[in-house]
């Protein structure tokens, strides 16, 4: 990093005899500004202190499936930021859910109807009841992401202490993104059981129990007992940020995505004799999750030349009119830069941030899954449109990386 910085810092006054690395520490704002706004005479492009163009993301690599004790795992490195994600699946028996019998009674009609059709909702079944899908995943907490920064990833995070505010916020952002993208299908997580058709006297007793049901339903149960959900898979998604050098969210989300794409759930069934769920350890029986789409997160930071420019001047109107005019003239030059994928050094100088999560459909149509912008007011609608375009390009790149791993 040091040699290009030395050549590309022409705004440093010649009298200053500090080496660039020290200048970067003492005057970080002026240092980055010097890189981004080279004098017009030098004909140099605007480039960041780390040698990247403002819209350039860091080199990203992903590797999946290297951890032995997980159902799915991935390591994602974005520049010097590294995230390891491991997915562990455990079973939640419906008998362990306190409110299960109640909630099931309310939704039983729907489930019966599914059973009457006599077929499992297939993977392509997009019109699967979204409300039930959401209810199962969100209300039963089937996805449990937790991000840990207490790994010595950066100074300032005390290992062994409770998760920092940043770690808690990142965990919640990942959880809400998992919910809002509906990435994981509830049907992949359900373990069904088809009770065998028993003798007629058994059926009669069964019907007696359900006297309160309407007649139509009674006849339906008489033909075939409805399938019932015996358990759910709960995915514990743990993300360890091994090295933190800015932009932890993009790395963590990419790691979650890669790990979920790698996740294999064993075939599970209700064992009547043991009264428990039993799984097959055969790899051939296991199936991968069928995820909905491939939402890719891209984060941006806005670096302002004059951080105080946004402050309204408190002046007597007449006295400084020409001064204000001069200010207005200056505004013509770009005084802020939108930096893609800010590193740790840049993050310290950034007030305004934006995060765009993009997915693309098969026909190439871009959908915005999530858009977040906070901390300032310099990014306008036109800029946001550009950010979406940049994120769409990033999506293509990430798709290639994730498909290779």
């Amino acid at each position, binding site marked *: 990093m040091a040699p290009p910085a030395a050549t590309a810092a022409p705004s440093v006054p010649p009298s200053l005899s500090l080496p660039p690395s020290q200048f970067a520490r003492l005057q970080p704002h002026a240092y980055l500004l010097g890189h981004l706004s080279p004098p017009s005479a030098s004909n140099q492009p605007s480039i960041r202190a780390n040698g990247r163009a403002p819209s350039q993301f860091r080199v990203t690599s992903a590797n999946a499936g290297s*951890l*032995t*004790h*997980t159902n799915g*795992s991935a390591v994602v490195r974005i520049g*010097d930021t590294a995230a*390891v994600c*491991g*997915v*562990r*699946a*455990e*079973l*939640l*028996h419906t008998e*362990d*859910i*306190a409110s299960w019998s109640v909630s099931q009674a309310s939704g039983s009609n729907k489930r019966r109807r599914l059973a009457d059709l006599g077929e499992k909702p297939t993977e392509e079944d997009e019109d699967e009841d979204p409300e039930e899908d959401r209810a199962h995943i969100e209300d*039963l*907490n*089937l996805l*449990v*992401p*937790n991000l*840990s920064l*207490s*790994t*010595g*990833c*950066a*100074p300032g995070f005390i*290992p*062994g202490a*409770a*998760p920092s505010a940043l770690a*808690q916020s990142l*965990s*919640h952002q990942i*959880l809400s993104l998992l919910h809002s993208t509906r990435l994981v299908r509830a049907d992949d997580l359900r373990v069904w059981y088809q009770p065998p058709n028993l003798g007629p006297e058994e059926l009669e007793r069964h019907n007696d129990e359900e006297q309160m049901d309407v007649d139509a339903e009674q006849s339906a149960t008489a033909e075939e007992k409805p399938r019932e959900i015996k358990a759910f898979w*709960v995915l*514990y998604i*743990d993300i*360890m940020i*091994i*090295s*933190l*050098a800015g932009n932890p969210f993009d790395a963590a989300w990419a790691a979650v995505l890669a790990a979920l794409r790698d996740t*294999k759930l*064993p075939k*599970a069934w209700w064992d009547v004799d043991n009264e*428990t*769920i*039993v*799984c*097959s*350890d*055969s*790899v*051939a029986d296991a199936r991968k999750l069928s995820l909905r789409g491939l939402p890719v997160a891209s984060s941006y930071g806005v670096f302002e030349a004059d951080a105080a420019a946004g402050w309204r001047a408190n002046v007597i109107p007449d006295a400084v009119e020409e001064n204000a005019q001069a200010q207005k003239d200056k505004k013509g030059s770009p005084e802020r830069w939108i930096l893609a994928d800010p590193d*740790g050094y840049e993050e310290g100088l950034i007030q305004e941030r934006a995060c765009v999560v993009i997915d693309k459909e098969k026909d190439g149509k871009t959908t915005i899954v999530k858009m977040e912008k906070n901390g300032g007011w310099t990014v306008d609608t036109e800029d946001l449109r550009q950010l979406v375009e940049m994120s769409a390009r990033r999506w293509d790149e990430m798709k290639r990386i994730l498909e290779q791993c």
Partner: protein
Amino acid sequence: MMADRRRINGPPGGTRPAVFASNLQSGTSATDRAQRQRQPSELRKIFLKTGLIPTASGSSYLEFEPSASLAAARANPKSLIPPSSALKLACTVHGPKPLPRSAAFSPNLVLTTHIKYAPFAARQRKGHIRDASERDLGVHLETALRGAIIAERWPKSGLDITITILEAEDDRWWGSAPDSHDASWGMMNVLAGCITAASAAIADAHIDCLDLVAGGVAALVSDDSASTSTVAPKLMLDTDPAEHRSILSACVVAYMPARDEITELWLKGDSSKASLEDGDDRTGHEALIDGAVDAARGAHAVLAEAVRESLLKTVGQA
């Protein structure tokens, strides 16, 4: 117990790990048990690299070579149950940095060590809060390193060493039933790895040491089925507990070859029944310690190579 409000908790009723059908029916275990393919004195290869985490003053990443059975299972996956696992850990060193104002005066470098398993590191899911065994490992690691660091050179300073274990070693083969010889044998391998990795990270942080301290493990194992009592246990170096029927005794040392000094010694189990070669009149525990030191010498060679690489890199940058 109160729920941890700073983390996302799973279903309040708790979840159960998957039970595999092949575990319920007994009898399958004898055939596909993991077997040690190495010679008794042959060590596993170690991958050790320093300087991967730029925000830390020193860092290292260590990985043990997967056992033959695990490598085979990876190359040709049939079962979802891994036959064994190989240690993977990341170590960071932050410091030396000034002690907080509230801390008492110390003429020496104050060393703090944290070892934490990732929740997905072991066969059983680990909690987010450090448990007693992890704290115990931290204390063992601290004693091992304290003897190697020249602490007088940094008065009033602190050094934080943090190790994240991404994949731990098993305590026994997954299929065997718990028996009387059970103990947390895997933890000893983990400690040996932690010592070697921490030593590399400390060197990467340019902290003065007497020597590079390396960790090594040796164990007395009896692999013969049934007739455990008649056949005396054999001495093996760098044991993977998943590959042995029962481990009677194990020893981990932190060893500095230049001074021929052991900074940490941890011996567990009954070492009295060791069968050594004829003419070897060492007692069981002496043989164990010698074995562990030999293993540490092997690790030291890897360590020295990694540190040399790290040094060349810094020289190249300057």
